[in-house]
């Protein structure tokens, strides 16, 4: 296993090719749950976990079932099915095993399936022919990057809450502009790692 490559993959997917700021995925959730810090943190944790596990599951299914059977054209429905099934069972298990955790993070689980990022990770893994560990690294980096984006955004939006933003721009428009400026700052990382 090439650890440098894995490390680069994590860093690159978290910072340089950040899902939100350079790939534009998961924006609905990004703008939806970044209003309060608490929700942002909860979502980040849940997300990263789901991302890594579903990347791994999808990889196994894709490599060992779909590819040998030449069913790759079903990848969209299969991946979304895997994610949905995993989220559903995580929901059930968590409710049983750790109700406290479920109480904290359960709500976010429900939001996850209508989010394109979660399906983009396995799709991209399949497209780039990553191996098992690379797929997990990519899932992890993407999750961390998304979490980072959410937390930064939430902390700034809490500050914006008290700012004199002109009425037509209050809420979503200024958040978009804010995301644009953050993305502008994140271009500073470009060229750091070439993948």
């Amino acid at each position, binding site marked *: 296993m090439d650890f440098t490559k894995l490390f680069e993959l994590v860093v690159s997917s978290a910072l340089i090719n950040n899902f939100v700021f350079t790939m534009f995925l998961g924006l609905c959730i990004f703008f939806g749950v970044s209003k309060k810090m608490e929700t942002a943190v909860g979502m980040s944790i849940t997300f990263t976990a789901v991302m890594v596990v579903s990347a791994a599951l999808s990889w196994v299914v894709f490599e060992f079932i779909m590819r040998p059977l030449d069913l790759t054209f079903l990848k969209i429905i299969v991946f979304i099915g895997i994610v949905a099934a995993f989220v559903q069972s995580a929901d059930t298990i968590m409710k049983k095993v750790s109700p406290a955790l479920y109480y904290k993070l359960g709500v976010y689980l429900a939001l996850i399936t209508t989010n394109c990022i*979660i399906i983009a990770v396995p799709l991209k893994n399949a497209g780039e022919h990553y191996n098992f560990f690379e797929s997990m690294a990519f899932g992890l980096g993407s999750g961390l990057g998304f979490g980072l984006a959410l937390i930064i955004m939430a902390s700034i939006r809490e500050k914006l809450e008290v700012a004199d933003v002109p009425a037509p721009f209050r809420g979503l428009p200024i958040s*978009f502009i804010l995301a644009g400026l953050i993305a502008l700052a994140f271009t500073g990382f470009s060229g750091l790692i070439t993948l």
Partner: protein
Amino acid sequence: MSLQPKSNWELIKNGMFGENTIFRMAISLCPSIAVTNGMKNGMALGIAVVFVQTMVNATISLMRNFIHPKIRIPIFMLVIAGYVTIIDLLMATYARPIYKEIGLYIQIIVAFASIFARAEVFASKNKVWSSICDGFGMGVGFLLAMLVISFFRELLGKGELFGYSIIAGNPLLIMILPAGGFLAVGLLMGFFNWVDMKYFGGKGASGV
């Protein structure tokens, strides 16, 4: 979501403007930035969405009496994913150059909240024809938003429209880069809110 009957035209109009996915409902946002750096891409994805949304609504509405409520979610998922797969395969075959650039986003249509939401709140409860109009309206609303955004981005960022050179000189490169996408959508959204507030007495987008 009002359930009183509306005329088909009203349904379409509602989808296009009143409940415009991007500017009003603020869902399906990713493609509004990811594929709007050129009008060609924006239009391609928009058309794909019109197709999927209309067909999904039609199919769900047709099947609405056969679907057991307990399994409605997997069924919706299958229908949506099915149409997305079809359009994905078709574009991969017949529109290769564009597909190369926006392929991932075509596949991602499967996770669009707006499609699932319309299937759930509208198509599963309404007649076929209304559902088609609703889906078509929503899809066209999305397409319009994509066109507006990509119009500004391509014009400012490349000085081109549909790839044809329109203005000479140094374009604002940033507009076709990630940051510019967010800025364009934010500014346009603010502008539409301003117009809405000033001339139509609206309260601005519901936002998230």
